[in-house]
């Protein structure tokens, strides 16, 4: 029992690791702040493409979504960071992470937005168009608000997944939270910094998860 406390819940080591882990948290939050809005926008664009009447646009969007949902994000990230330089494209770790997550997140957001768009009855579009609204106005003011509302829990769940996924950035040595915690662990031969990082993820994500349950219940009722 003591050994477990010593190895995983060592307050002293946690306190020492704290500054570095918090710095890592800053990077984690920065990545999220860039990658989540970008991914959501990319996903929305791909979703609109996938329900387009134009066959070329539709097929391109579907191919994009299929490709980046199938490709493991770790592979994608390593390819962008370590593979692209052979093609003369050298990206900083942050740029590589941003691009990799943008592609991966867009694909997942696209599937959710697409389901949302398809969940809005066609009568809504017809009603809006019958009042002289353009297709774009109809999308912005009628279809999209309902689509988002209908898939809000899925959108938020995806955000939770993305926050956890940012730990992959450590493979390109970007100092996000788990990378920082791992560093301290390897220096101290003690897993407590990882537990600390895990605790912070929990604190960060738990309110979001409560919120998702709340929306799920509201939609069910």
């Amino acid at each position, binding site marked *: 029992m003591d050994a477990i406390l010593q190895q995983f819940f060592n307050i002293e080591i946690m306190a020492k690791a704290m500054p570095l882990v918090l710095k890592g948290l800053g990077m984690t939050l920065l990545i999220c702040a860039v990658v989540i809005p970008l991914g959501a926008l990319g996903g929305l664009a791909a979703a609109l493409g996938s329900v387009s009447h134009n066959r070329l646009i539709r097929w391109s969007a579907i191919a994009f979504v299929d490709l980046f949902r199938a490709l493991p994000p770790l592979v994608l990230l390593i390819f962008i960071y370590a593979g692209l330089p052979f093609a003369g494209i050298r990206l900083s770790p942050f740029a590589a992470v941003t691009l990799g997550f943008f592609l991966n997140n867009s694909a997942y957001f696209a599937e959710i937005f697409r389901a949302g768009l398809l969940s809005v009855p066609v009568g809504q579009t017809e009603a*809006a168009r019958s009042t*002289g609204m353009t297709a774009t106005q109809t999308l912005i003011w009628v279809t999209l608000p309902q689509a988002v*509302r209908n898939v809000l829990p899925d959108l938020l769940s995806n955000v939770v997944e993305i926050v956890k996924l940012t730990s992959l950035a450590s493979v390109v040595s970007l100092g996000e939270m788990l990378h920082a915690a791992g560093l301290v662990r390897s220096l101290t031969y003690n897993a407590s910094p990882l537990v600390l990082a895990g605790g912070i993820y929990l604190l960060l994500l738990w309110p979001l998860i409560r919120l998702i349950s709340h929306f799920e219940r509201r939609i069910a009722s």
Partner: protein
Amino acid sequence: METVSNRAGTPSTATLSLRALHKSFGTFPVLNGIDLHVQRSEMVFVLGPSGSGKSTMLRCCNRLEEPDSGAIWVEGDLLTGPGVDLNKMRQRIGMVFQSFNLYPHLTALGNVTLALRRVLKMPRAEAEAEAMAALKSVGLSDRARHTPAQLSGGQQQRVAIARALALKPTVMLFDEPTSALDPELVGDVLDVMREVKEQGMTMLVVSHEMQFAREAADRVVFMDGGSIIEQGPPDRFFAAPEQERTRAFLSRMRG
């Protein structure tokens, strides 16, 4: 009176004109050459068995459905054909749907103001004043802040009528506006439609409310198999239908 107008021979006196309208879904013909002219302030009632093409005809009148051939004019302005500013034309053609199609994420007021603000670009205060006037005309001033989910079916349909009315259209299209309603709520909607007519609106109505047709319609049109079989003033139409198919339909409707 079929006066020649400057635009491709439409009768200039009609508010809504359909000429030789054809429409197929795939190889299945749904409209087989419809000619119909609705005069200013006239209420024309369309009857016909299920699948006879009533909704398709109505939906062609604002091009939610694209006719294969033929032409439609609104106050002498061509609606069909290339180069028509469809969004502009649709402002003049109000439509009321069987399933209301209110925007569930907006209040009654929001439903009515949306097109006023986005299409007519009215400032918010002006749009809300217009919308309140429209809601008042359907007897729902006190429900402006309710969402569709908080309204009865009859109230929802009256909001939908207000939404169309607020744009001050030239003609209003109704596709079975009371078919989705509980019987006790039908009367309120019909009362509103009667009022709209009394204000001088030009109306093309698909509905099975025979009693209402008798009282309020200026003309009844009977469709079957994508064609207009017979039409006339309601007294004559119901009392002495000329066509065998009309008689068969009416006796079926009376049960």
